Every structure is written in structure tokens, then in C-alpha cells.
């Protein structure tokens, strides 16, 4: 076994073990949310995954970014075929394993990768310009400073490094095929490298060309492995999570806000519709709605980790458009950041994160007794929650079928039901519905209009 093979295997093992650890942490963070059974209607779910996740159907509304995004996406998918060969070559210490077996097909595959990579490179530069030079409103909202901005740019730079690696590797290879045909099997004519390679590398010392080929090869591999390990801290996690997230997205009407059976049954028993409920006087007062990520459903948290930070939701949000603080994208980013914070604290096992009761009972830190003195309201202000018109524009706009409205309503429920707080303007409306069955307190009969109309028509 050569030293190259050993390094290769080491790199792969390390990269994959770190990745597996970090991905399982994300899974754990998602499962910090409440259980919610989501199943049924597999046919419709497959269709959604195919059309929306795989086919990017909801991107088409804004066609310029749709085409650019599609070129990077398709190039990325296709490049993975080449990665299989890189794995085999690296592991067994061979070179371009598939080339002699596939012949013309090999040329076709590598040529396609080259053309797609070139398209992706062009798209990458346009994306960089859109993010940094053009003042596109959805990229310059307050939540897009700092890390989110850097994240968006880093990945584009990574893409440039990847494509550079591919062309260095292929370009040098084309030249080496002429210099040392025994070790470098013919790849056939490659649309970019067969032109660029000889132009840049012809006439160089064979060892230098070999080095260039190796640097390109390793660059390609390292960028991909780096990307894999970068995903868990990046909005680019959506390249994996978009699929399950679309699969588990709500299939029932958007118009239905999740029912609360506990409250329904209590009201039913108050109205004498069902037998009186046993009330446990000892039990703690129940908390309704969501105060922290633990009260959201796991799907709400998966939504947050799937968010691409594209801002399509905020760009159509009527509240955001008219200068209110609410930005649905920020709601998702806040939920994700909070889940990540809780996850990180749980990993420390620190007893300072155990709730008072837990400490009294000498418990170890778990998600159940977790208390760091903070909650989601430290991230999302009430002002943001109150501004939502429940118009569903964000739900409609999201390319990966995230529902920003659900957590907003769950937090409103916490505020109103558990804290008895919320905008004071709403109180007269609540009391009026409760006392007189109408949103306004009016002295008249509900059908006064009918009497008026009959009179008018006499």
C-alpha cells in the first residue's frame, strides 16, 4: 500500500466520522421537538418530493435564480459520479479506473461534467455578484449580516475551488496522456480540458504536470469532504434536508390551524357535551402553545434546519414589505439557532443547565430537565409575532415547503393562553366573542340588516 493510499484512507475515515457525528447531532436537535405523527398518502408525498425537492418546481416563479441554481445543482449531482471514481482510485491506488472499461461513454460522462461545471462556474459568479454587488432586498435584510452572509459567499467560493480542481485535474491529465500513455489511460476529447490543458501545461516538466494533476485531484476531494463537514453549520444543509422536509410537509388544508384537543375537550365538558373531565388538582397548570423549541413539533425544527435562507418568504411578506420587524425567514433562523444552542449546551452535560427541580433531585442533564434561563422569546420578539396577518404568502413562496406560520401561531398561543398576555387591543374582541358571539360589542340584533332590507323593499 502506497503512502498516498494510506493518507487517502485516513482522510476519508476522519472526514466521515466527523460528519456522522455532526449529522446525528442535527437529528438529535430536530427530535428535541414534540412528537407529531406525520404519515399517510405516500403517493402524494412521493409526487411532492419528485416535483418540489428534486424538480425544484417552486423555484420557477423567479426564473433567473431558478436557472442559475439549477445549473449548480445539476453540476453538483453529476460531479458525484466522478467522485465514485476518485474513491476507487484513491482506495486502490489506481488511476482513472473507469476510463478503459467505459470508453466512449466515459468521454461522454466526463464531458458532461465539464460542461455542467462550466455552467455552474458562470452561475457562481453571477450569484456572487447578486449577493454582493446588486442590492437585492431579500439579501440585505437585517438577519442577513454576519455569518449568514459569509456562509452564502463561502459556499460560492468553495464551488469555484471545486471547479478549479476539476479543470486542473482533467487538463493536466490530457497532457499526461500524451507524455505517459501507459499510466494515463485515454479519456477521449474533453470539451474544456482538451483545449485548456495543452494551452496551459504543454512543455512543462512531466513531474510538474503530475503534481498539478494530483493537486487538482486532492482539491476536488478535499472540497467535497470539506463541504460535507461544513453542511451541518450552514444553510446548505438543505441539499439533504429538502427531501425529507418536503416528504413530511403538511398535506391537509393550509386553512386549518392545528386543533388543540385538550382545550376542545375542556370546553366540550363545560358545555355539557361530554362527561365532566377528571381534574387533577395536584397537577401543574398546563402550558399551551410554544415557549421554546421543546414545545414546537419536530417538523417545525426540521423546517428550521432545512431553511435555505433564500428570503423568498420575507420578500412577499406583507408585514415585512411595509417595514415591520417581522421576517418569516428570521423566525426560521431563530428557531434553528436556538435548537443549535440547546443542543450544544446539552452536549456539555453541564449541571448548570439542569433545572432547579432537577438539581434538587440530583439529576443528570437531559432534554427533559433542561433550563438555561432562556427560551425562544429571547430570539423572537412579540412585536414580530403580532405583525403576522396569517396571509400564507410565506408558505406559498417557500421552495422547500417550510411553514413559517405554524411556529408564529404556536408562540401567539403561548402568549395568549399561558401568559394571558398579547396585544391589549385584542381583549375587547375576545370578550365580545365570548359574551355576545360577535367580534364587536353591538347592541343590535344580528339580523337587523334583514329587517332593514325588508323595510327598504316594501
Amino acid at each position, binding site marked *: 500500500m502506497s503512502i498516498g493510499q494510506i493518507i487517502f484512507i485516513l482522510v476519508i475515515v476522519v472526514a466521515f466520522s466527523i460528519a456522522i457525528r455532526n449529522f446525528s447531532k442535527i437529528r438529535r436537535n430536530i427530535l428535541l421537538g414534540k412528537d407529531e405523527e406525520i404519515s399517510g398518502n405516500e403517493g402524494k408525498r412521493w409526487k411532492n418530493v419528485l416535483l418540489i425537492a428534486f424538480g425544484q418546481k417552486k423555484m420557477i*416563479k423567479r426564473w433567473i435564480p431558478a436557472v442559475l441554481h439549477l445549473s449548480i445543482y445539476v453540476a453538483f449531482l453529476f460531479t458525484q459520479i466522478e467522485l465514485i471514481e476518485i474513491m476507487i482510485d484513491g482506495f486502490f491506488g489506481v488511476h482513472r479506473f473507469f476510463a478503459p472499461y467505459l470508453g466512449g461513454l466515459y468521454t461522454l460522462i466526463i464531458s458532461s461534467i465539464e460542461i455542467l461545471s462550466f455552467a455552474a462556474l458562470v452561475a457562481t459568479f453571477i450569484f456572487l455578484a447578486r449577493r454582493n454587488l446588486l442590492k437585492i432586498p431579500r439579501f440585505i435584510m437585517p438577519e442577513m449580516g454576519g455569518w449568514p452572509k459569509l456562509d452564502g459567499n463561502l459556499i460560492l467560493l468553495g464551488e469555484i475551488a471545486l471547479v478549479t480542481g476539476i479543470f486542473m485535474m482533467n487538463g493536466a491529465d490530457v497532457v499526461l496522456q500524451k507524455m505517459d500513455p501507459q499510466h494515463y489511460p485515454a479519456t477521449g476529447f474533453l470539451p474544456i480540458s482538451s483545449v485548456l490543458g495543452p494551452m496551459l501545461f504543454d512543455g512543462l516538466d512531466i513531474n510538474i504536470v503530475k503534481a498539478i494533476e494530483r493537486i487538482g485531484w486532492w482539491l476536488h476531494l478535499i472540497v467535497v469532504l470539506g463541504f460535507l463537514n461544513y453542511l451541518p453549520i450552514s444553510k446548505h444543509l438543505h441539499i439533504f434536508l429538502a427531501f425529507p422536509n418536503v416528504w413530511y410537509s403538511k398535506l391537509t*388544508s*393550509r*386553512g*386549518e*390551524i392545528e*386543533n*388543540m384537543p385538550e*382545550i*376542545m375537550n375542556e*370546553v366540550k365538558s363545560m*358545555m355539557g*357535551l361530554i362527561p365532566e373531565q377528571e381534574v387533577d388538582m395536584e397537577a401543574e397548570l398546563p402550558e*399551551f*402553545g410554544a415557549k421554546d423549541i421543546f414545545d414546537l413539533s419536530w417538523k417545525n425544527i426540521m423546517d428550521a434546519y432545512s431553511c435555505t435562507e433564500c428570503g423568498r418568504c420575507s420578500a*412577499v411578506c*406583507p*408585514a415585512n*414589505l*411595509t*417595514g*415591520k*420587524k417581522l421576517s418569516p425567514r428570521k423566525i426560521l433562523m431563530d428557531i434553528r439557532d436556538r435548537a443549535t444552542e440547546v443542543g450544544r449546551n446539552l452536549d456539555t452535560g453541564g449541571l448548570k443547565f439542569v433545572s432547579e427541580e432537577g438539581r434538587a433531585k440530583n439529576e443528570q442533564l437531559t432534554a427533559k430537565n433542561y433550563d438555561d434561563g432562556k427560551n425562544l422569546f429571547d430570539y423572537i420578539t412579540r*412585536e414580530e409575532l*403580532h*405583525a*403576522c*396577518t*396569517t*396571509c*400564507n*404568502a410565506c*408558505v*406559498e413562496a417557500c421552495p422547500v415547503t417550510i411553514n413559517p406560520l405554524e411556529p408564529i*401561531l404556536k408562540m*401567539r*398561543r403561548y402568549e*395568549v*393562553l399561558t401568559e394571558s398576555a398579547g*396585544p391589549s*387591543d*385584542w381583549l*375587547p*374582541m*375576545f370578550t365580545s*366573542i*365570548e359574551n355576545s*358571539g*360577535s*367580534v*364587536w360589542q*353591538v347592541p343590535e*340584533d*344580528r*339580523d337587523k*340588516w*334583514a329587517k*332593514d*332590507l*325588508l323595510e327598504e323593499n316594501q
Partner: protein
Amino acid sequence: MKINTMAEYQSEGKKPEVLFWVGCAGSFDARAQKVTKAFVKILNAAGIDFAILGNEESCTGDPARRAGNEFVFQMTALQNIEVLNMYEVKDIVTACPHCFNTLKNEYPALGGNYNVIHHTSYLNSLLKDGRLTIEGGAFKGKKVTYHDSCYLGRVNGIYEAPRELIAALDAELVEMKRCKTNGLCCGAGGAQMFKEDEPGDKRINIERAEEIISTGAKVVAANCPFCITMLSDGMKAKDKQEDIMVHDLSELIVQAKNL
């Protein structure tokens, strides 16, 4: 003209074809009452046997639920379901997309299953069945723009029925840039109607009013009492209340038919 309640029908041992759910706005708001009356005039002209609940109707609970007050929602909703089930109501038509959505999509989980239809779809089906005719060219060639309410459009996917009514009026429909799935909210939903706005640059209805003005249409067709209030306020703020009229589709039909 006759307007009977469910109780009156029951005392005669009869059942109406459909229950007209009036809603809080349609019952009490001076502007929305006009829509209610217009819709009733059309029902009468088409010879529909309809009933109302009168004082037995309560708020559907939409704003309470969306404000987060599930208790108030459940109380009013369960009470309504009691009444509706007692009368064995099957078909409900309503001129409010919020009532429509809640009755249709939220009452089933509470034990209320009805066939609910929004009045624009209902009027359109009357038109198709020949029970309603829209003659006369009161709107012939006039520029009309249409405002998709969130709860009829994006939430329930009804975009065409109201547009077909505009076509039946012979009017020229000028779409706003943000229409159908992209329609911009009027700003009233999610219980915003009942509170002051959060601080911002402008009110949502002003943003929408500006878009309406830019179409050059002199008439805005709407399908929701809250949108009508919001958009009319927007027109006033822009000093266009004399030039651009905000109407429910049933009012436009009443004008065309001269009822």
C-alpha cells in the same frame, strides 16, 4: 322578498336549499351590510330557497384562533356546531372568506361537517346552471381590477370563480402585478383588523391601494368584507375614494342587474 331563519323553516317542517352564513361583518359592519343585502337580493332574484340563522349565529372564531385564543375559538365554534347540527344543516354559503375557511376547514375536527361554499363560487355556479343571468352592459368594457383575498385565494385555491363573474359582467379585467398565488394581503387577516399596526414604514392597505391605483381601473372587485374595509380606507388615504370604487362582486352584479 323574504328572509327566513332556520327556526322559521323548522317550525314549518321545511328545509331550505342552503344556509346563508352572514358572519359578524356582514351582520354589523355598515359597509359589509350592503354586501349582505346585495347578496340576498341576488338570491331572491334567482329564486333560491335560503335561510339565515339570525340570532342563533355566532362569530366563527377565526380571529380569536389566529390571535392565539383557542379557548374563545372553541367556545364559539362548538356553540355554532351545536346549532348547525341541531338544524341538520348540510349546505352553507357565506360572503366572508374567513367564515368560509373556518367553517370548511376547521369545524370538521370539532365535529362540524358541512358542504361550505363561498358566495363567489356559489354565484358562479348559479350562473352556469342558468339560475342567474347577468344581462345589461353596466360594466361593458369598463376596467375592473380584482383583489384576491388570502383566505379565498392562497389558502383555499379559489382564483377562477370570481374572475369568471367579472367576465360575465363584460368588464375588462386588469390584473395587478401581485395577483392569484402572489396576491398581496389587505392587512386585515390574522386578527390584525382588531388592533393597531406594529411600527413600520406604511400600512399594508396603502401598499395595496397604490398597486390598485397603478392599474388605472376605476372599480376594484373584492370578495371579503375585511378587504373591502381595508382597501376603502386605503383609497381614502390616497384621496381616491371618489374615483375608485371598492365593491364586493355581489354588489357589482346587483348594479348590473339593477336589482
